[in-house]
């Protein structure tokens, strides 16, 4: 007897988690719940990466998206205005247009995905780390560097936008 039946079952559970989590993030009124469910969706995605034998990418997915980005979103939510009353759905009026746009993006992705990604996944059971590192630092070195420059520019921009004045100067100005 083998455990072959486990993988499709796990995949089905993870798919349900990803889709249901994503739908709930969009539909829910409570923004904290949406943030937490987004973390859940990211976790399910990480599970899918593990199924594909890409444990390293799964670990980075959790490390960056669950551990840092969701926390930053929650951090932002706590600083925004919060009211308890039931509110109308944000996307109420745009639903038909939104459906058209989603279809326009999703249908080509599904078609391309089913047609072109036919290669076998990397061998399961780990060992994807050296392959990943090699491809990042050889074939994809240029995009990698471009991404880092972009992130650096974003960081500098954020600092410039949110920079406070020198407290001493501000105090002097107040006194005047």
């Amino acid at each position, binding site marked *: *007897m083998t455990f072959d039946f486990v993988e499709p079952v796990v995949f089905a559970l993870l798919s349900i988690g990803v889709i249901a989590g994503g739908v709930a993030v969009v539909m829910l009124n409570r923004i904290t719940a949406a943030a937490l469910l987004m973390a859940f969706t990211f976790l399910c995605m990480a599970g899918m990466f593990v199924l594909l034998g890409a444990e390293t990418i799964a670990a980075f997915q959790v490390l960056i998206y*669950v551990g840092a980005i969701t926390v930053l979103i*929650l951090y932002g939510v706590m600083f925004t205005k919060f009211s308890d009353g039931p509110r109308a759905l944000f996307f109420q009026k745009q639903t038909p247009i939104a459906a058209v746009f989603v279809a326009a993006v999703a249908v080509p992705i599904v078609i391309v995905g089913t047609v072109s990604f036919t290669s076998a996944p990397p061998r399961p059971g780990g060992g994807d780390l050296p392959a990943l590192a090699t491809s990042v630092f050889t074939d994809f070195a240029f995009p990698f560097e471009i991404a880092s420059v972009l992130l650096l520019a974003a960081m500098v921009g954020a600092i410039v936008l949110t920079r406070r004045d020198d407290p001493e100067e501000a105090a002097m100005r107040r006194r005047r």
Partner: protein
Amino acid sequence: MPVGPFGIDPFIWAPLRLVIAVGLALFLVLNGALLQIYLERKIQAIIQDRLGPYHVGPFGLLQTFADALKLISKEDVRAAATDGWFFVAAPALVFCPMLASWAVLPFAQDIVGTNLNIGLLYLTTLGSMTVLGIVIAGWASNNKYALVGGLRSAGQLISYEIPQILALVSVALVVGSLSMIDITRSQTGPFVNVLILPFSFLIYFIAALAETNRTPFDLPEAESELVAGWLTEYSGMRWGTMLALSEYGNVTVVCAIITTLWFGGWQGPGVDAIPLLGVLWFTLKVYGFIVLMMWIRATLPRLRIDQLMSFCWKGLIPMALVNIVAVATLALAFPNSLVPIAIANWALVVVFVAGIPFVQRRRLKTLRARARASAAPAVHAAS
């Protein structure tokens, strides 16, 4: 019929092994927390010239058991305005990542949950997930002290994760593996990694104190300013799960990482003859660092949030980056010898330790000058 370990059918052994492993991890977490609370009380009592617990059981050993029983039997209190499911989910969100990290801790040669080839990355990942639970707890409590505690912890934990990971990178550079087993195996004999990479150990230890909310970095739950920070609204076993189990479990995990990466893990005298002796060495080393953390807690006062942040972003992160550049360059230049890396690292330790008073004096000088400059016009106006 195939026969697995202990003459059990592998089909039964696979789930049985899982059950045993989870049961053992839970047992160790629960008892470790009880033991560490007792140690914390006794060690602080000794340092502060008190007696500590001594009524219940011999030397007060059963005091923490009594406390745990009290917590379990306590009424489950929930304030009316707390945020429903989040309030209930937060303790689990803090507890589960901590429990999951026990899967890769190598207690001895073959006593390890699983030999994951990205073990170190896995532990870092789980460590970063704790923040989510703390922030949710602070938010769901609907209490201003809890919210401030949650916000502080979000800032602190995300910031200190960076030097922590950078310190781990230098070890991975030298060892060439992320598996906890391989890292332990690479340190045979007396030349453990701390002699080669003392500076990354120093950075990791400081960042780990902040990651586990230990004094002097216990700002998220600062008792004297925030009641209990993000734990304010919790009581009974919810509080017990979050504070006692998760915090002490995290301390144990962090100390286990330090032991494995820099102090040779399970290795010690007599391990080759009796492999089970490794468990003893590993536990002794881990508890050595736990006691060191308690000693620091009883010695140092709490930092202010701006001091905490500027120390991380202006002190630890640049030094960790310098450390990585130095280790990577020397590892490329001298692929067969670890001596240049060791020399560079010890030099960095000296620079860091000697630099702190220097930087501190300059900072104080600017602060005083600024205070004088802003005070002068006010005095002038008064006169």
